[in-house]
């Protein structure tokens, strides 16, 4: 417990004010709901008893039809209407996909809802009669997964590329003629393999093997004497960065998501990651440029510490904080992009529900204020918390 408290105190910005603490708590709350969502809002009860037999439907694969065939006298079994001998329901007895036909669509939270209070829709229902609160609980999961996932991918691509671009620049990474020949040869062979009449799986396996072998050879043949042929890493990386930055971001996301035949949050996540890694790379590049000039790095270079070790031990760990700040802002912009996409109805499959989707439904039904207020404020407060934390962290690092 003491450890936990000290961990919480170590959170960036925790000590810099009430608002930052509140933001952290709000994010933890959202994260908790995202993880445990299916056990908070679900039409299946935790536990139910029928004809003397106990079931744990939420934790096992017991279904309504399965119960109906086992207990014909109660058939058809419905989680909501069947009279169980004893039942222990989730706090919100609706899943995000459960369509409550009895309540109907666009039920206001304050409306006189039929049935007992246990099945009340505390935040109303949407256009299809699904519970808004259950939908919002689902939305936490989608938003956080896409926000964190896409930025993690962007981080994993952007940080190595950005630091390599800054560290080696256009002239720093030199290949000996032998190494250059190895590289050229591998590229040619991989190119040829892709035209061979073999299955794509074989092609990919062979290519991966060849590339790994080439990397191994390059690594083995690395020497401290410098080669002749410079690889313009900076130009290569920054070229890609400026190409991706040259596209209008939202337009490109929309087109990519519309073109890809698959639907789902993974596609949205990868698309956002593709568009966000350049900003991480640029950020990292600027950081490493600054650090390269510092004395301790110069000292390490004079001591002939290999570049790889300098980068790994002395640069990347120290660039962690500024990069994490831009990571926090990146997560917020990824969540914003995801909810904009859902709001426009592009990307996620139609049965999926999240904050943007719920908000979009209010446009067809203007008096459904609960569809404007609750999902919108969920997006807003998540973004506000992320901005608050990022801002506080930035102020701390400027001091």
């Amino acid at each position: 417990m003491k450890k936990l408290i000290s961990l919480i105190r170590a959170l960036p910005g925790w000590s810099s004010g009430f608002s930052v603490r509140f933001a952290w708590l709000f994010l933890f709350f959202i994260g908790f709901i995202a993880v445990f969502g299916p056990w908070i809002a679900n039409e299946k009860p935790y536990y139910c008893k029928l004809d003397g037999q106990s079931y744990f439907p939420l934790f096992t694969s017991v279904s309504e039809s399965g119960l109906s065939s086992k207990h014909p006298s109660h058939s058809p079994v419905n989680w909501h209407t069947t009279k169980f001998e004893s039942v222990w329901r989730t706090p919100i007895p609706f899943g995000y996909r459960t369509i409550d036909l009895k309540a109907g669509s666009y039920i206001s939270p304050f409306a006189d809802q039929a049935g007992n209070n246990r099945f009340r829709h505390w935040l109303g229902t949407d256009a299809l009669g699904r519970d808004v609160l259950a939908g919002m609980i689902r939305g936490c999961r989608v938003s956080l997964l896409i926000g964190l996932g896409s930025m993690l991918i962007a981080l994993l691509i952007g940080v190595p590329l950005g630091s390599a671009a800054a560290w080696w620049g256009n002239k720093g990474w030199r290949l000996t003629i032998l190494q250059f020949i190895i590289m050229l040869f591998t590229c040619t062979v991989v190119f040829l393999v892709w035209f061979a009449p073999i299955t794509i799986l074989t092609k990919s396996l062979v290519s991966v093997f060849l590339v790994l072998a080439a990397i191994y050879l390059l690594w083995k043949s690395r020497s401290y004497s410098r080669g002749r042929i410079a690889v313009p890493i900076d130009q290569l990386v920054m070229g890609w960065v400026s190409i991706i930055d040259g596209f209008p971001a939202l337009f490109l996301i929309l087109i990519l998501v519309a073109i890809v035949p698959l639907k789902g949050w993974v596609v949205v996540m990868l698309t956002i990651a593709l568009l966000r890694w350049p900003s991480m790379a640029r950020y990292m590049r600027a950081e490493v440029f600054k650090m390269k000039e510092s004395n301790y790095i110069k000292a390490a270079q004079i001591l002939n510490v290999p570049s790889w070790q300098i980068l790994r031990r002395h640069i990347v760990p120290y660039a962690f904080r500024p990069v994490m700040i831009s990571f926090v802002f990146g997560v917020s912009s990824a969540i914003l992009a995801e909810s904009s996409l859902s709001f426009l109805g592009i990307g996620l499959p139609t049965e999926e529900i999240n904050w943007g989707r719920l908000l979009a439904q209010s446009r067809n039904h203007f008096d459904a204020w609960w569809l404007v207020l609750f999902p919108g404020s969920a997006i807003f407060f998540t973004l506000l918390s992320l901005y608050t934390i990022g801002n506080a962290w930035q102020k701390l690092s400027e001091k």
Partner: protein
Amino acid sequence: MIRSLLRRCLNALVLLGVISIIAFYLSKLVPGDEVLDYLSLDDSKYAASVDPFEQRVAYARVAKKRSLDLPLFYLSVLPSNYPDSLFLILPVSDRQTVKKWAQASNQKEGTIDLYHDLQRGLGYACPLADASPAANQLCQMVSELLHTHDLFSAHHIILRHHSLIAKDSSATPETLAILDTLNKDIELLVRSTGKPQMAKWLPVFYWHGTHNQYHQWMGGFITFKPLTSLIDGRNAWSKIFDALSWTLLLNGLAFILAIVLGVLIGLWSGTHDGLKKERVVNIILFTLFALPSFWLATLFIYFLSSGEWFSIFPAGGLGPYHSASNVFQKWAVLLTHLTLPVLCLALGSLAYISRQMKQSVVNQFHQPYVLSLRSLGVSEKTILRKHVFRNALFPVITMIGGALPALLSGSLIIEVIFSIPGMGRLMYTSLVARDWPVVFPILMFGAAITVFSYILTDVIYKWADPRVKSLET
């Protein structure tokens, strides 16, 4: 200055070239067959004709008209067992079949011969199909063959039909001759299947010159060659330019509002730094910054224009400005309709600009020159107006260029919500309707604006602050 500017522009052009290649390949990846999309526009008879030969003729005609029968790019790389005229084979389903045959048999000439003979069979038999049962059978057989990827089953189909047609009394000598040729062609292919040939694995490069789809596509963009929208057959460019004027109006107003208000608020908060009322303003600005514009827009519509609470502003569209009797009335109508969208667009950037401006004013007041001015007895007002204001403006000026692409993206969702017929809304509706000939020019247009606004940023920065000597990095 001029030289570095020229170099920047040249870089930007190269960048746009690469972007256009990526956009072109994206446009080729869209689901569905492009020629089929155009067929219903260009050839109204197509849907009525069931004759596969006529369908093919119509298809080829449309493909030629839209220059979709050309190779994709200046250069193409094909495995050497693919026929080099593979790109001329249309429709795409035929091309897939021929590709599979060539892959299986390693015989590019033989595959092309078979394909031409099949087409001859279609041309001969299908027009006669109503008259003679044998011709009908041949026509059906050829259509079936063109969808059979496996060579062995194709051979089997020919053998089966051969025996049937030979018995038929209505079979003409030509029908039989075509059958024989087909049989001979396919036997040649079947015989050479399964024999791997190392030399056939090597890729072959083909150079097509300027006679390719990318060249036509890109050239069309540069010269604004008419493009047909798939929904209504209108010229896509006229649609885009109609939309552009509204986007410019909307974004221009939002931009001016954001900059003027943002700079003023920033100046005020910078000079009142640390006061209680300043802190309140700061918190409000921070909240505005985090407010998603589409939520703000739905809130505005709900509270101010849906009639649930108030209906002060119209909910969407541009209003009946066409029927206005004079210019003032027209603008009055337009402005009442544009108030909410402009506010939604401007508030986010306003918050950002004023926060930046405040920071830079505070920084300027810490500079030593302010202290020396104060010691000379210059009034605070003069210091602020003549010295601090100017210097504090630099960071804001540099944001102007960077804000343009962001505004363009941001206005998409606002235009959709308030149904303003601008570029963003056009992009969205075209994308949902899969009207690709409108979508990709807008993408390229946006890319051009983005790339050149980066140059604009550099130029403005240099113009505003002559201390920035070089434009390079």
